[in-house]
């Protein structure tokens, strides 16, 4: 994989190796995240793609250290900005969360507290990390609302969330994530609950802001089409593991993993017009009952007896890693 380069522009911001978040339930151990390895460079946009239940959201929460019992987070290496996250105390993690790493959630109807006004929520976000006066925090909040494209921000500050539309609320949630100028934003399907036009606007807005401020972004989504226009690199997740990771263009042109092929083929295009879309056979295996070896082998057309053994994540091309015994470009 990528090694940490000394030059500052290429500096590795987040380095995760072998992240395992297991839930020790009465029914057994649920390995929601089982050996995720990924790196994010400063200012880079990484798309984390996978279907429901593949562990994308839990990966995000694990990085924030917000996994509740019975979940347990372990990793071989978990470094953020040169610091070992596993060695941080609860207090140090709190200083990091919302300040250097921020998160944006899926449903804008739910991420803002319905009983508090927008200004209250924004000001307390600033004041949670910095000793600034209310008026200074307020001024910064208004600045940020302007940046995310909210017209008449002063007016919007003094209303309750239910007065605002979904797109408006998601913009406010994004503004809140950006308030403390974080180095990394984890966006968990922030446009899924919005209609397509608003989706486009939000995508454009977020990308612009991240490029301007040099903020790194992990965009978690199940929609490969959305993220391919946004991300520098893509990581494809399946059953709690990263199965393929490469620069976006390489994945679009030449995905190696059979699962990524399936995802690509299920996007409607002009070529597939009028024909029925490709569908990956079967469904995600139950996390309590994972097949041995490669988790995808039960649904994979390339599977052989070799797949019973755990595949190794290897680079098949420069910066293009894949976890498969039979990687190949052709479908």
């Amino acid at each position: 994989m990528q090694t940490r380069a000394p030059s500052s522009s290429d500096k590795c911001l987040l380095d995760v190796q072998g992240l395992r978040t297991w839930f020790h339930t009465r029914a057994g151990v649920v390995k929601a995240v089982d050996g995720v390895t990924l790196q994010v460079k400063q200012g880079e946009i990484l798309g984390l793609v996978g279907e429901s239940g593949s562990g994308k959201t839990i990966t995000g929460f694990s990085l924030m250290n917000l996994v509740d019992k019975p979940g347990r987070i372990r990793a071989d290496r978990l470094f953020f900005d040169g610091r070992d996250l596993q060695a941080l105390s609860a207090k140090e993690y709190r200083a990091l969360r919302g300040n250097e790493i921020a998160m944006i959630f899926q449903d804008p109807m739910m991420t803002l507290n319905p009983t508090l006004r927008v200004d209250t929520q924004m000001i307390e976000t600033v004041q949670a990390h910095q000793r600034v006066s209310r008026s200074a925090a307020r001024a910064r909040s208004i600045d940020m609302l302007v940046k995310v494209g909210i017209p008449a921000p002063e007016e919007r500050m003094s209303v309750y969330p239910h007065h605002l539309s979904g797109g408006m609320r998601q913009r406010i949630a994004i503004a809140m994530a950006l308030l403390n100028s974080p180095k990394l934003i984890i966006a968990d399907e922030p446009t899924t609950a919005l209609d397509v036009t608003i989706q486009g606007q939000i995508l454009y807005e977020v990308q612009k802001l991240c490029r301007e401020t040099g903020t790194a972004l992990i965009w978690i989504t199940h929609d490969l089409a959305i993220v391919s226009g946004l991300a520098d690199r893509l990581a494809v997740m399946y059953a709690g593991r990263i199965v393929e990771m490469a620069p976006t263009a390489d994945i679009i042109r030449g995905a190696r993993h059979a699962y990524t092929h399936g995802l690509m083929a299920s996007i409607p295009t002009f070529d597939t017009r009028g024909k029925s879309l490709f569908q990956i056979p079967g469904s995600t295996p139950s996390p309590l009952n994972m097949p041995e070896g490669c988790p995808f082998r039960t649904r994979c057309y390339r599977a052989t007896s070799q797949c019973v053994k755990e595949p190794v994540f290897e680079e098949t091309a420069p910066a293009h890693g894949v976890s498969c015994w039979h990687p190949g470009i052709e479908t």
Partner: protein
Amino acid sequence: MTQMDIALASPALPAKRESMLRLFAQQFITSKLAVLGLILLVLFLCLAIFAPWIAPQNPFDIGKLNIMDSKLPPGSVSSSSAMTYWLGSDGQARDVFSAILYGLRISLIVGFVSVSAAFVIGTMVGLISAYFGGRIGALLMRIVDIQLSFPAILVALVLLSVLGKGVDKVIIALVAVQWAYFARAARGAAIVERNKEYVQAARCMSLSWQRILWRHIFPNCIPPLMVIATIDLAHAIALEATLSFLGVGVPVTEPSLGMLISNGFEFMMSGAYWIAFFPGIALALVVVAINLVGDHLRDILNPRNEI
């Protein structure tokens, strides 16, 4: 810039900011019975608050009482012709109407103070146990379960027999039997709220747990707690009357409605029905009025009934 223009062209903000309170009021007046209950309740509150100015006689000023006027039926004129006993007079020549006004004061004070205290204590316990869960939460909830498995009147009787008489002691006993209802309701509501995304978002912002619990979760738990508070207010007043009637509640020097009923009870058989009857009517009206308001509150604050 085009993105900005689109956003500017379609500002999705309502022209008028409808206030939550007005919406609530609009919903509340849909039930005539509840409005009637509220009017009655406000009337009783006013009567209780302004009792010293409304009452024709101070029933506790023994010097003003004329023993010749004892047990006069409703509508009798006093021997000095200064006033009319509209609701009769009792064994010590007290005007029953004045006694009811003063009794209403005690009853309502006991009710409001005990419910407020139970609300605060119960909500704290419920929210903390919901937010932290684990062993502390389980322990707190088992205490609540034990508390709720005893009949309220039994717990109150035992407590008062230990504590003795007095308005403050009755309040303590009522808080002790009522906080558990609030704890259970607050926990239920808070567990639902805790798993909502805005709480996750607040945790991602690293807000302190106190702030998340009191500023973010608590306001969203208020509706069910308000319903319990109104219904418990009626319970508290009725329970205090029961305790006073049994002779373990308020002292004779500070008679509540229950105490007045108890005092008049001995005259029932001798025909002086009004001494116990009118305080009884007053008590029933207060409890019914509060219940009418509480029932309708439950209907409009129930999330399942929302559009």
